């Protein structure tokens, strides 16, 4: 949908210092709204729009388009938004392969790109750019947090599992970066695989104390349902994506008790998060996912930066973004030199809330002020 939300909501209470720059900002949102991955894109879009609404960000106009998870189409839409719609900022991409296709071109044309989710390692390291900001995480982070947690818990034998593609190998490498115990199995599955009986049999036979798996989207749903049926009792853990709000409903009770790591949780205790969760639930009648939370922060950041500097003054606007002076649903938030967050990572557990809806609750902190492993390769 080409959501021309001319958010000229009369900025309620101009108490905030300087809405002096009433320069209009045009944001192009490219995200996945059709096909199997649409849930993530819909959450990101809704979270982003909600942030602009709550911030009363006047003169931020958003153009939204569906990338159908195709990198080539995403490039075409980005070109159109930059050259034809004349957007100042691009955002919204969920998947790393689409980000790798779009981001280098967009920043080369002098546009800002703010990532709501994808954080491929080249963009954090050697190919970092002054106009690229990742508001979410670097791809390895959640997995590192899980590895760190497994290490801290003193788990002796781990079985680890991910699809055979770059994000999958990055995931297991991230896990292994902090987990130093014994690996009794390291398995790569086919991307898009839906039957995990063979892998579950291997897990059963491995004698592992715990299983770490990264299987995004439908793959993870299939794995968890089949795992629960298999009678294997070995506890599982994963990155927050595997147990995010968008998939918990489809996994069902099989997810109860699973540990997962993320930089955000609906029960994270700060005022902005409470406001966000309540507003999101009120507006869309469902609990927000991690994607919605990250996109919400992205929206808040843009609104805050636009209030401080004109987007036409690239240096000033960039400085305003880098300062990251906004209320994050993650509590504290700051950018590293490579424009990726330095943030805390939590261990969450899947529970049922008061209404019987599956959701996550924080049970431990894995990292405090964690930064990614690629920042040293970035020459910013």
């Amino acid at each position, binding site marked *: 949908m080409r959501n021309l939300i001319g958010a000229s909501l009369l900025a309620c209470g101009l108490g905030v210092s300087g809405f002096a720059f009433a320069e209009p900002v045009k944001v192009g949102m490219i995200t996945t*709204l*059709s*096909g*199997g991955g*649409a*849930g993530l*894109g*819909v959450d990101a879009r809704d979270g982003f729009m909600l942030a602009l609404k709550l911030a009363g960000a006047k003169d931020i106009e958003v153009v939204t388009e569906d990338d159908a998870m195709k990198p080539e189409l995403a490039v075409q839409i980005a070109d159109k938004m930059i050259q034809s719609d004349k957007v100042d900022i691009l955002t919204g991409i969920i998947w790393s392969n689409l980000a790798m296709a779009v981001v280098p071109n967009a920043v080369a044309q002098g546009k800002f790109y703010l990532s709501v989710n994808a954080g491929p390692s080249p963009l954090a390291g050697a190919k970092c750019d002054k106009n690229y900001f990742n508001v979410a995480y670097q791809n390895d982070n959640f997995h590192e947090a899980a590895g760190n947690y497994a290490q801290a818990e003193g788990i002796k034998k781990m079985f680890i599992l991910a699809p*055979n593609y770059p994000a999958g*190998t990055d995931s297991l490498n991230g896990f292994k970066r902090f987990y130093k115990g014994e690996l009794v199995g*390291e*398995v*790569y*599955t*086919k*991307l*898009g695989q*839906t*039957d995990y*009986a*063979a*892998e579950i*049999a*291997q897990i*059963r*036979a491995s004698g592992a104390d715990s299983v770490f798996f990264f299987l995004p*989207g*439908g*793959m993870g*749903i*299939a794995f968890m*349902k*089949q795992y629960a*049926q*298999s*009678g294997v009792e070995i506890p599982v853990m994963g990155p927050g994506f595997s147990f995010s709000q*968008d*998939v918990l*409903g*489809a*996994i*069902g009770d099989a997810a109860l008790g699973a540990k997962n790591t993320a930089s955000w949780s609906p029960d994270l205790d700060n005022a902005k998060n409470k406001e966000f969760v309540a507003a999101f639930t009120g507006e869309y009648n469902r609990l927000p996912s991690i994607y919605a939370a990250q996109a919400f922060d992205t929206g808040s950041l843009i609104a805050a930066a636009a209030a401080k500097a004109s987007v036409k003054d690239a240096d000033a606007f960039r400085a305003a973004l880098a300062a990251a002076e906004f209320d994050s649903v993650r509590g504290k938030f700051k950018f590293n030199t490579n424009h990726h967050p330095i943030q805390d990572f939590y261990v969450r557990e899947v529970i049922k809330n008061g209404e019987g809806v599956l959701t996550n609750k924080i049970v431990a902190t894995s990292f405090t002020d964690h930064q990614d492993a690629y920042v040293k390769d970035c020459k910013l």
Partner: protein
Amino acid sequence: MQTALLIEQLLNGLQFGVMLFLMAAGLTLIFGVMGLINLAHGSLYMIGAFACAGVAAATGSFWLGLLASLAAAAAAGAIVEMTIIRRLYGRDHLDQVLATFALILIFSEGTAWLFGSFPLYLDIPPLLQGAVELPGGVRYPIYRLAIIGVGIAAAFGLYLLIARTRLGMRIRAGESDREMIGALGVDIRSLYTVVFALGAALAGLAGAMVGALQSVQVGMGEPVLILAFVIIVIGGIGSIKGAFVGAILVGVTDTMGRILLPALLTAMIGPAKAAGIGAAIASMLIYIVMALILAFRPQGLFAARG
């Protein structure tokens, strides 16, 4: 590798195979009788899964959902056949590919419109929860055994239907000579609708049963569709027997390849690279098998004709 694990993996391959058979049977039947390439067969699988999940969520009963999946897929199949597919029988394969490709887009987006963008929940019925101990000390999920049972029953039922009934006779006649049965006074139009609906119902059944094990989401049908095409081509297009053999072959090859290749490569080149390379070859394995079979038997294993 222990024998118990090997047996378990063989069962997994068998289960995957019979599930694929349900898809492939409909596809090969439709091709055999009507000469139609139906790319939208995966959409009927998806419709079955969504119907089952939707009805199970509303009524709390998986079994009602299963019935609904058969009904919904058969109805969708019959409607599509009568309104669109019917016009394509006389056309060449190209037009059929384009039209059924368009149907995929319509079905996928239509389903997303109706059910939203998030995957649906569908659980195994309480009766079939959990695992049982098999002779030899293998613990195996009951539900997967049930799928094997249903798949084999469906194969047997199809065999009886085609070999023993009037409808089956007409189907066989249609496969061997399309013009002839018209001349014999058989109502071809309704025969075609029935065959298409039957194929659709089998796909819907597969979708519903697998939906309880996997994620019920838009686009779930296409990966299965491609495997089903591989199967009917390996087996020989139009041959139910070929579809069955091909399905088991693909199911077992895929499952065992995923397990054995990384293990084999670990022995050869060490564990560091084996996991990745082994998985890469395993994901190509069934296509390699298919190319090999067609290189030596260009009409598949059980060519129905010629």
